[in-house]
């Protein structure tokens, strides 16, 4: 919820009135949903102008989510990379601690915003899709908090690999509906949520978990998540008296990354890296790097980079991280990629697992596998920057949910 003045040539002025970020974004939905999408946009514009809405959002952020999340100087990790770097090299590394939020990830920021919109619109039932289960847990949490019934669509494959989150959602009163079509992961969960929504538009609000989907979702999710970057900006100015040199965040759909990046887009001295899940490697057919290995197309309501074949059939994504296991990406990232403002790097399962263990050992912080993809970029980037330079990594979630996956990858039994 940033209301700062935006210059006409700003990188922060998009989307346009049709919901486009350059050629990306838009509203590619069935006619049944169009009137509701237009309603949502009107309601969102009104809410943005309403001081009461902002006050309620901010109050919940402080007292329910536990914001602001700390900006933490990762001293031992900094020293670790400096020891490997040439003299004078090895940037100072900070973590934005989104994993300390209530429910353990950045997802809650967006869910608070969207459930307030749902209530404002008089909707009485909530649906959501989830991959890793973090968004499902965050949605189930706000539904419990506001007393609304909620159905979470989750791929059957993801249900199997994210059992702790499935149980958490059930404890919070949500119905978890397994999706057995297609690849049985996030993409298919989103298909099924859209199929539910088209039949229930009269009373149901769809809380989309990432900065993707039809306009205005990419914009409003970004705005709710921009609290991450806005806080980071204030915190780093206070700690260091200057802006960071590099921001790093993992990108699946891209909500934690756009939330960190967006308030800095016009600061041309701040470089940005989004890490995509490269699975077994982008030269294999088992990855989820839609910018590096895909091309523009239309899916789930927006035009964006997608993993697809030459006929436009969507191909299955793979990542060890269920939250990144998606063949698309938010449309604003596609635009930031094509405009060159943000660099997107592929990170493999192996690299993410190494970073997961390193962060746990060096900092006593077990990161989510999603966030481990961001941390993995430090392996090359930390030593390319000087000691007086600053990197902020978004630790978007905590890794408790991933211990079974990681144990299995390490050959350990729990």
């Amino acid at each position, binding site marked *: 919820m940033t209301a700062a003045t935006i210059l006409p040539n700003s990188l922060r002025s998009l989307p346009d009135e049709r919901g486009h970020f350059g050629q990306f974004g838009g*509203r590619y*939905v*069935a*006619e*049944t949903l*169009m009137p509701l999408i237009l309603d949502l946009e009107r309601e969102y514009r009104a809410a943005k102008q309403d001081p009461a809405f902002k006050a309620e959002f901010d109050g919940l952020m402080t007292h329910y989510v536990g914001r602001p999340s700390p900006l933490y100087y990762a001293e031992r990790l900094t020293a670790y990379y400096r020891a490997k770097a040439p003299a004078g090299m090895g940037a100072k590394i900070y973590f934005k601690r989104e994993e300390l939020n209530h429910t353990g990830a950045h997802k809650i920021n967006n869910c608070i915003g969207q459930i307030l919109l749902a209530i404002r619109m008089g909707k009485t039932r909530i649906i959501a899709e989830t991959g890793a289960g973090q968004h499902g847990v965050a949605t189930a949490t706000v539904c419990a908090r506001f007393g609304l019934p909620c159905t979470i669509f989750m791929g059957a494959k993801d249900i199997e690999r994210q059992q702790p989150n499935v149980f958490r959602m059930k404890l919070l009163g949500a119905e978890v509906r397994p999706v057995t079509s297609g690849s049985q992961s996030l993409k298919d969960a989103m298909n099924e949520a859209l199929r539910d929504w088209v039949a229930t538009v009269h009373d149901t609000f769809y809380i989309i978990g990432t900065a993707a989907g039809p306009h205005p979702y990419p914009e409003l999710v970004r705005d709710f998540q921009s609290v991450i970057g806005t806080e980071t900006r204030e915190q780093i100015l206070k700690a260091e008296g200057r802006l960071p040199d590099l921001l790093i965040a993992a990108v699946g759909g891209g909500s934690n990354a756009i939330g960190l990046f967006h308030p800095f887009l016009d600061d041309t001295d701040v470089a940005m890296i989004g890490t995509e899940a490269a699975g077994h490697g982008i030269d294999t057919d088992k990855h989820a790097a839609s910018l590096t290995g895909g091309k523009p197309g239309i899916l*789930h309501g927006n035009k964006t980079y997608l993993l697809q074949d030459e*006929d436009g059939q969507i191909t299955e994504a793979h990542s060890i991280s269920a939250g990144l296991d998606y063949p698309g990406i938010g449309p604003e990232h596609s635009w930031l990629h094509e405009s060159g403002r943000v660099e997107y790097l592929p990170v493999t399962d192996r690299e993410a697992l190494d970073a997961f263990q390193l962060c746990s050992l060096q900092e006593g912080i077990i990161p989510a596998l999603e966030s481990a993809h961001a941390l993995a970029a430090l392996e090359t980037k930390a030593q390319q920057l000087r000691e007086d330079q600053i990197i902020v990594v978004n630790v978007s979630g905590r890794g408790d949910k991933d211990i079974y996956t990681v144990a299995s990858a390490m050959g350990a039994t729990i």
Partner: protein
Amino acid sequence: MTLNRLPSAFARAAEEGRAALVTFVTGGDPSPADTDAVLDALVEGGADVIELGMPFTDPIADGPAIQAANLRALDAGISTAGIFGIASAFRKRHPHVPLVLMGYANPMTIRGADWFAEECKSAGVDGVICVDIPPEEDDQLGPALRKAEVSLIRLATPTTDAARLPAVLEGASGFLYYVSVAGITGLQQAAQDSIDAAVAKLKAATDLPVVVGFGVRTPEQAAAIGSVAHGVVVGSAIVELVGKHGTQAAGPVRDYVASLRAALNAKEKAA
């Protein structure tokens, strides 16, 4: 001449005092080679307009029957070139029966809208229904289809209100497809009262034929809708027959379509 197949099919049905029968099957189901026989069965059963579904991996507007058909067709190796091959062959066998492609934006636009529209034209496709390109995103496909003189068939739904309807009709041609239920294909059917009221409003707003679909299964339902609309679409029920009978589907499909057509004809006698 290609422009005339849809209007003349509706005109012919109207002359006979009945609604047109519009039938849908998924292209490439049960296999690319077996689709020709299924399409012929539709024509032999008395369909006036054929909708050929272009399979997509993520058919978000479709219920279980057509989802499964999409995956069967893709698993059996259907491609976009294969769909146009089926369309071209159909056009040679049936020079006068209108053929409409129905599907999703990504397969239709991946090689560029102009490429797609030209392929439609040269294959003898009369119209295109794209489920997930609403009027707001018309420039992704509409201009190319209009340039190639291929009809762009738009969808109206129970949520399309009077304020929005003119935008839906702008640039539409061929016919107007009224999706009678807010939902996905093949599940519940709308109450006849609500269909009557909606069709009356749509007829007042456009000169295009108004065709009603989603959830229509029985000859009785088809006849009831046919008494108010210019056409009736039946899809999932046929697709289920193809799913059940596979390579032997032509006979059951022909018989079922004939029963729908007989119900629409009976309305003519009653009138």
